[in-house]
């Protein structure tokens, strides 16, 4: 059933064309359609079921429109219409003829409600209708979404479709469906045994459930045994994929930590400013994403590409401003920077509260970032996380190059180690400071763009990440970018491996205790600065 979403997504595009093609409903269907507009929500299911089986026009368009919550009817004529929502305007068209009804206003129509139960049914019904869809991927998803509900008429449909089926992968899915059915319903133990054999290699949860049932309840001992063997095999696989999954979770948490911390690794790690406003720089980046989407509502798909450079600029400029106005006056007094930047963070928080309201803001996820790629039924990687891992690494690499290969990097380090001497060597320390702080803040802004895809965009966003960020930088070793990288991933992975055992709360506590104890072993973090000067 979880494939329904995917189906819906790919159907959306086809929606208009199919509705244009639909023939007008038959005699037998007319009264049912009328009833659909009148019936109470909890009585609608039988009507739909009848509509599915009654001869006449194809009900696919109707079902799809309804599933999407776009099915309306004209109050007067009781004619069914489909709504097409485009940003703020809604256009209506006749469901069957496809004729656009431009003079219809919101007042004249009423929505046909759906609830979860109906949605569930609609999804299945659509899947049944789509067993013959031209696209093999759709067919495959349709079959798989029917696994959990293999009634006899569904099975007949699948059996028929199997005969015509050309695509290898769809055939396999259909075979699994048929075997599932046999495993459940076959009278003869040998048939069930054969079915179990056919199911071998499939990782579908439905298969596992079926095997569990057989292993526990089947009257025949050999069937029970075979089912158990199959089950063990699946469990073995599940364990492995579970491990991979956890690793992925850990890495993705790590990359979030990395993104959040990496700007701080510059402002704090390299420049030595205890930057309590770092979280707010992240927040500014996230709000930039929000504003970009607000300004360009039609370009959600590209919004992030616009937001990344913009957020870098917004946060970077804010950083430069802060440096020029405040930090500059605090050279040689690193602890005071804590106080001042804390003040700044309060001001920035309240500022977004005033400008954007204290409520969270809505940031949409572009389609290319939503959903997941399914590697097999046991392992799927969510796309947004995948992108964020890649993005975090990319940002890290760029930063590394900037600091290692440009003169800025050298100058920053020289200034932070001995300001007076750097001046005497002709380094324009003011500019270096401003640029570095701007760079660190800008990177934080970029992190904000990424985080806007995962969590709240609100005034508290920064606060949520500031402590973690400091923890990561310190754990990795102040002033060492690689340390920050390793620390972020270590903490992420550790957290995700502890969490299933202890629960989320205890996992965080244990990770903290681990950090505290670790620092006793290595008082300067994972990658300490070595040598005489570091003392």
């Amino acid at each position: 059933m979880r494939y329904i979403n995917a189906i819906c997504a790919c159907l959306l595009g086809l929606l208009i064309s199919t509705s244009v093609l639909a023939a007008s409903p038959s005699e037998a269907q007319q009264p049912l359609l009328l009833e659909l507009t009148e019936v109470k929500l909890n009585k609608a299911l039988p009507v739909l079921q009848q509509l599915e089986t009654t001869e006449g026009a194809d009900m696919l368009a109707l079902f799809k429109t309804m599933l999407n919550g776009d099915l309306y009817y004209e109050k007067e004529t009781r004619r069914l219409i489909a709504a097409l929502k485009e940003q703020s305007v809604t256009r209506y068209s006749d469901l069957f003829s496809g004729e656009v009804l431009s003079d219809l206003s919101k007042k004249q129509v009423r929505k046909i409600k759906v609830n979860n139960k109906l949605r569930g049914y609609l999804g299945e019904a659509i899947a049944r209708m789509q067993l013959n869809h031209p696209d093999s991927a759709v067919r495959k998803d349709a079959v798989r979404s029917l696994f959990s509900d293999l009634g006899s008429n569904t099975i007949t449909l699948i059996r028929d479709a199997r005969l015509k089926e050309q695509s290898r992968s769809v055939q396999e899915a259909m075979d699994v469906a048929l075997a599932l059915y046999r495993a459940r319903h076959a009278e003869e133990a040998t048939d069930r045994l054969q079915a179990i054999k056919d199911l071998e290699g499939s990782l579908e949860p439905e298969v596992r459930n079926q095997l569990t049932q057989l292993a526990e309840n089947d009257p025949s001992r050999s069937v029970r045994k075979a089912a158990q063997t199959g089950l063990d095999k699946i469990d073995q696989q599940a364990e492995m994929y579970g491990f991979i999954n956890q690793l992925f979770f850990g890495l993705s948490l790590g990359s979030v930590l990395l993104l959040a911390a990496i700007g701080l690794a510059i402002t704090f790690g390299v420049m030595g400013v205890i930057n309590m406003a770092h979280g707010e720089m992240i927040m500014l980046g996230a709000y930039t994403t929000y504003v970009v989407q607000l300004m360009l509502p039609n370009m959600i798909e590209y919004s992030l590409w616009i937001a990344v450079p913009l957020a870098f600029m917004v946060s970077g400029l804010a950083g430069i401003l802060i440096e020029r106005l405040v930090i500059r006056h605090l050279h040689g007094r690193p602890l005071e920077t804590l106080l001042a930047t804390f003040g700044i963070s309060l001001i920035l928080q309240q500022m977004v509260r005033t400008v954007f309201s204290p409520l969270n803001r809505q940031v949409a996820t572009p389609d290319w970032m939503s959903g997941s790629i399914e590697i097999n039924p046991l392992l799927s990687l969510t796309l947004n996380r995948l992108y964020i891992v890649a993005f975090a690494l990319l940002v890290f690499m760029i930063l590394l190059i900037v600091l290692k290969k440009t003169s800025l990097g050298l100058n920053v380090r020289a200034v932070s180690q001995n300001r007076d001497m750097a001046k005497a060597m002709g380094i324009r320390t003011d500019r270096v400071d401003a640029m570095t702080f701007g760079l660190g803040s800008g990177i934080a802004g970029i992190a904000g763009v990424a985080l806007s895809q995962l969590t709240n965009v609100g005034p508290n966003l920064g606060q949520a990440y500031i402590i973690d960020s400091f923890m990561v930088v310190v754990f990795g070793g102040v002033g060492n970018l690689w340390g920050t990288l390793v620390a972020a991933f270590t903490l992420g992975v550790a957290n995700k491996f502890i969490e299933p055992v202890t629960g989320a709360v205890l996992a965080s506590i244990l990770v903290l205790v681990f950090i505290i104890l670790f620092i006793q072993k290595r008082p300067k973090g994972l990658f300490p600065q070595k040598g005489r000067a570091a003392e």
Partner: protein
Amino acid sequence: MSSLLSNFMSFSRINGDSKVAPFVVVLLVVTALASSCNLLMPEDSVFYVSTYTITLLGKYLCYAMLALAVDVIWGYCGILSLGHGAFFALGGYAMGMYLMRQIGDRGVYGNPELPDFMVFLNWSELPWFWQGMDQFWVAMLMVLLVPGLLAYLFGWLAFRSRVTGVYLSIMTQALTYALLLSFFRNEMGFGGNNGLTDFKDILGFDLQSDNTRVTLFIITALMLSGLLVLSKKIMQTRFGKVIVAIRDGESRARFIGYRTENYKVWLFVYSAMIAGIAGALYVPQVGIINPGEFSPINSIEIVIWVAVGGRGTLVGAIIGAILVNYAKTKFTAIMPDGWLFALGAMFVLVTLYLPKGLMGLVAQLKDRQLQNVNNRPNDKAEEGHA
């Protein structure tokens, strides 16, 4: 020149000229005045000080004590603790547990043994760490011991492994954060997020009566004065000088033969105990203790009070704490929507224009006066020591 005099002189040179005695006198006089005005004046008199003000002042003084604790280690030993709220909260919890047990069967479920939240979570008996907390002296012992022991343990680990600087600061932050999360857990047996509240009386005195409140307030003021004087005295001994020496050159101090980790541990423990006492006095006056006190942001704020007042001056820390909290009270009432702007701006401006805090300002003014009077250049080479 007598050695004592030289002692004193040298001290005042290190850390600005902060006069403790006049401050203590002012503090006690204000306390006495406020208390008597609350108890003796009729409510409609202009001189009447409301109980609200008294509890507010009491709270400020507890915070001041906490700031004192931070200043002792930060100002004098350079250990920036971003987790002192933890010791404060632990002291507070110890007191809270005592007060909770004092409720007895007056809780909503009327269980004479178990506090309400335990009944609520179906616990059948008191966990071991609640045993004995109905005895005042046990509780008071815990107020000192629990923060002290934690500080000892943490300090022993950290200082022996020579964790210093930001690493130490962030570890203290991790410590308080871990405690925050732990105390949030209902399984811990401290009432989870709700914490301990709804106290009735302390040592048999009704917590809601004005007399008790005033007494608590006076005790807080006395305690604060006592601890201030004690801390000042300690800092004037050679121990104090060693502490400052550790701040400025730990390894040098080691090469002279001081086992610096011991000094730091003991100072840390002392400071944690002050924080614990502050917490214990805080709880009966505000009426609630919950894990929020462990929140890292709170601990950062404490540091800020100290910085605003001027670190390494003790009196400054106290003034800073009172001032910032007073400002918070005022700002939140005057401009509930914008007070964070004011507070934030205050922090920024203080850092920029009063690098040594308010006490620094005082010293500066005094210096200027001196210069004018004596027309003799004064030695002001107190470098900022990070």
